[in-house]
Each structure stands twice: as structure tokens, then as C-alpha cells.
């Protein structure tokens, strides 16, 4: 018999308890936020359970707590820091970011954040999702500003840049057959100028 099976067994149990807890936390979060087909009583129950599940993962410990840090480090290095609800419970709307480049001669050019390969293109979609999901305005503005700066480096003659961020509306199959096509809802716009002034933000 293999030596040290007890230690392997303990690691196995701990590792998979963490995976199950994280996956349950994600499911409970979806139910608590009424994003599922479950009726309201389930959401109410999930709201009560949510802090308990989060607590078991050290969410209530202070950010500098060594136990919390050790746990988060392990979750990241093992790749188990998130659940597996990809494209679930429903496929979320995508986002689009368009830069209006204003030249000193009045010319306006439109640019999208771009990369060289299709593989990196998928990562741009993740980035836009991240910007769209962010509820913290300064963080969103910082991210858009950083992207605007990358466009600016490629177009050094530009005077001002207006970044327009919108969410994607996808037609259902029935709507598509009636002629409706994808459209975008305006969410935010930011104006950036060379003088490093704070961006002027507009929201819907």
C-alpha cells in the first residue's frame, strides 16, 4: 500500500471542499440576485445563505489576514478561484467600445481597440465584459483611459479622443427573421484630451 495515503486523502478532501464551496457560492449568488428561473422564495433563502458560504471562504476576514491571503493564494495557484458557470445561467450581452479620434483639422476617425491575432481578439471581448461589469466608476474610467492611451500612441496627431461604451442588443431568432439586427445601447462616454485633464464622463 502506498505510504502517506492519509496525507493525500486529507489534501484531496480539503481541495475538493474548496472547489465545491466556490462553485456553490457562485450558484447561490445567481439565485440570490434573481438571475435564475427559480421562484422568489429561493432567492430569499439564497440571500441568507450567501454570506455564510462567502464566510467559509474567508470573505469576512480582513484583507491583510494571513489565513485569508494563504487561502486566496492557493485558490489562484490551483486555478480554482472561480466557479464554472461559463455562459450561464444565460449568455450575457456583449459590449462595444468605439474611439472617436478628433484631429486638429476637424477630421474624425473611428477606431476599435485592436490586436493582431484572433486569439488575442477573444481576450478583448473579456476585457470589454470586465469594463461593462465594473460598478466602480473610477475603475471603469481608468480602464477606458488606458485603452484610449493605447489608441493615441498609434495616432499621435489626434487632438482629443471620445470613447463611447455601449452594450450589445442581440435579436432573438424571431426578431432576426423580421429584419432586426444587432444594435447597441449607449452606456458611457468619456472625453480625453492631450492636457491630461480628468475625463469628462457622460452616462445614459
Amino acid at each position, binding site marked *: 500500500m*502506498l*505510504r502517506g*495515503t492519509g496525507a*493525500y*486523502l486529507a489534501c*484531496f478532501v480539503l481541495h*475538493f471542499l474548496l*472547489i*465545491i464551496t466556490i*462553485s456553490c457560492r457562485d*450558484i447561490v449568488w*445567481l*439565485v440570490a440576485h434573481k*438571475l*435564475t*428561473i*427559480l421562484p422568489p422564495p429561493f432567492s430569499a433563502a439564497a440571500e441568507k445563505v450567501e454570506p455564510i458560504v462567502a464566510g467559509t471562504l474567508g470573505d469576512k476576514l480582513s*484583507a491583510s489576514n494571513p489565513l*485569508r*491571503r*494563504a487561502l*486566496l*493564494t492557493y485558490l*489562484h*495557484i*490551483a*486555478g480554482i478561484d*472561480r*466557479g*464554472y458557470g*461559463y*455562459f*450561464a*445561467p*444565460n*449568455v450575457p450581452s*456583449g459590449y*462595444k467600445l468605439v474611439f472617436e479620434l478628433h484631429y486638429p483639422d476637424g477630421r474624425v476617425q473611428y477606431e476599435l481597440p485592436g*490586436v*493582431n*491575432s*484572433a*486569439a*488575442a481578439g*477573444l*481576450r*478583448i*471581448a*473579456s*476585457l470589454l465584459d470586465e469594463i461593462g461589469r465594473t460598478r466602480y466608476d473610477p475603475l471603469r474610467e481608468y480602464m477606458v483611459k*488606458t*485603452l484610449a*492611451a493605447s489608441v493615441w500612441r498609434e495616432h499621435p496627431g489626434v487632438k482629443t479622443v471620445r470613447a463611447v461604451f455601449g452594450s*450589445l442588443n*442581440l435579436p*432573438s*431568432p424571431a426578431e*432576426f*427573421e423580421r429584419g432586426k439586427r*444587432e444594435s447597441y445601447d449607449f452606456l458611457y462616454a468619456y472625453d480625453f484630451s492631450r492636457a491630461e485633464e480628468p475625463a469628462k464622463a457622460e452616462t445614459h
Partner: protein
Amino acid sequence: MARWTERLRAFLFPPEADLWLGLLRIGLGLQVLFYALSLRADWNYLFAGPGDGLIGRALPEALLSTESPLIPRLGWLVMLTTRTGFSESTALSIVWWGLLFAGACLLIGFFSRASAILAWFVHLCAAESGGFISYGVDNFMTIGLFYLMLSPLPDRYSLDQLWRKLSPKDPQLIGFFRRVLQVHLCLIYFFGGLAKCLGTGWWDGSNLWRALIQPPFNLIAPEILIRLKYLFPVGGIAICLLEISYPVFIWNQRTRGIWLICICAMHVAIGLTMGMYLFAFVMIVLNVAAFGLGLGLARGEKLVRAPAS
């Protein structure tokens, strides 16, 4: 209680040959190579430091530090390299070459353990520093490489084994790590399927339609897809059921083959119709390594008892 513990031990430590481990190593070696090559043109642009590149790694790394300063990140590797006099851009290129080298070594089984650790670490650094631009493939690569580096490498199909003639690893330890991968896959599909079952869009097929027409996954024109609209509800329900029932049917000898083929077919379809080739490949590698080979020994195969470890 003692009987249960014995049964659990018997389940978790079955004597296994290391063919599955060889498959995992070769598959993840290829995956690391594809990953590195697919990002070659954008590597420095995606992971550049402050004031350079697309979004840069400064913000994701600062956010990581608030979680834990011990989570690996590209900033560490870049700092180490720039201290020896290289520019940041060169440092990032060296990291990329390091990842490519680790992938190639894994593929042939050259210094398998060290290569697995290097591939895991460099990929993890990139995935964490590019937190805003990471998606499912990074998560599954981290999981696969994490298990691979802990598994009893080298396997008998590696160059290491041919070259260094090492003593065989304990078959029960090999079996244990296969069980870990198998159980993890069961949880991945179960919770993925459960989350999908809780959404309306998978039952009426609208989620399948939305996933396929949404940029940048819209490789097939919606004008073509709309002709298949009656298949979307069937496809959506099939995906839900296939995933949520995976932990049940993948263990049964009679149904394992069909479930494995269906799951792999689903990933091939995701790769071809949505352009998520890397994601599809890593999922197929993990599935085939975990369940693709007979769970017992192949005919004529004998396990050599290793010295107790």
C-alpha cells in the same frame, strides 16, 4: 466507518498505468505551445508595463496585491530580468520564449517535472497579470498544469524515461492523481450544467443562438444559423443534460464512451463555431486523459510494484 474509509481509499488509490499521464503531458505541452504561439504577435502589447501596451498589467497586478502579495505575476519575472540589464520589452520576450521552451520540453518529456513547473508558473503569471483579458482557457490550463506538475512524472513515454531509466512510479500514486483529475472534471461539468439549467435561455435554445451570433464568436453568419433555429432548443437542452449528468454517466462502463464522445464533440463544436480553439483543445485533453483510456490496465500490461514512496 472503517469500511467506508477502506472503500474511499480503494476508490482514490487504484493501481494505474501511466499512459493517461503521458497523454496529459503531451496534450498540455501542445496546449502551452499553441497558447504561446497564438499570442506571439500580441504578447508584449497585452502584458506591457504602465504607459505602454493595450491595458497593461499594472492595474491587474495592483488588484492581485490587495488579495495576496504571494500570487505569482509577470511583474516578478520582468523585474528579475530587467535587473540583469534587459529592457522591459526584452524581458517580456524572454518570458514568452521560456513558456514556449517549457511547452516543447513537456511535449517530448524532457525534464518533465521541471518543465511542468515552469509551464505552470509562467502561464499562471500571464493569466494573473492579464486578469482582465483572461477567460476560461486560462482557468483550465492552470488546473491542468497544476495537477500535471504534482503528478508522478516522468511517465514511461517521456524522453526522461528513455534517457535516465528511472525506477517506475507507484501505480497507486499514479491512480490517485488520475482520480483527482476525474473528480474535478465531474465537478466542473456538474456545476456548469447546473448553472445552465437555472437559466431560461438554455431550455428554449436562445442562449445557443446568442452565443453563436455574439461578436467575436460569430464565425457563422446568422443568415445560415437561422435555418437551424428548430435545433437550438434541442441543442440547448442536450448541453444542459450532458453536462449535469456527466458525473453519473462517465463512471459507468457502458455509458462512458458515449458521454466522452458527446462531451468532446461539444468542445469540437465550440472550437469550430465560436473560434475558441484553445479552450476546446484543453478541455478535450483533460477529458481524454481522465476518462479516455480504460480505467483498468491494458491487455498484457503489468504493473511493476514501485518501492514505497
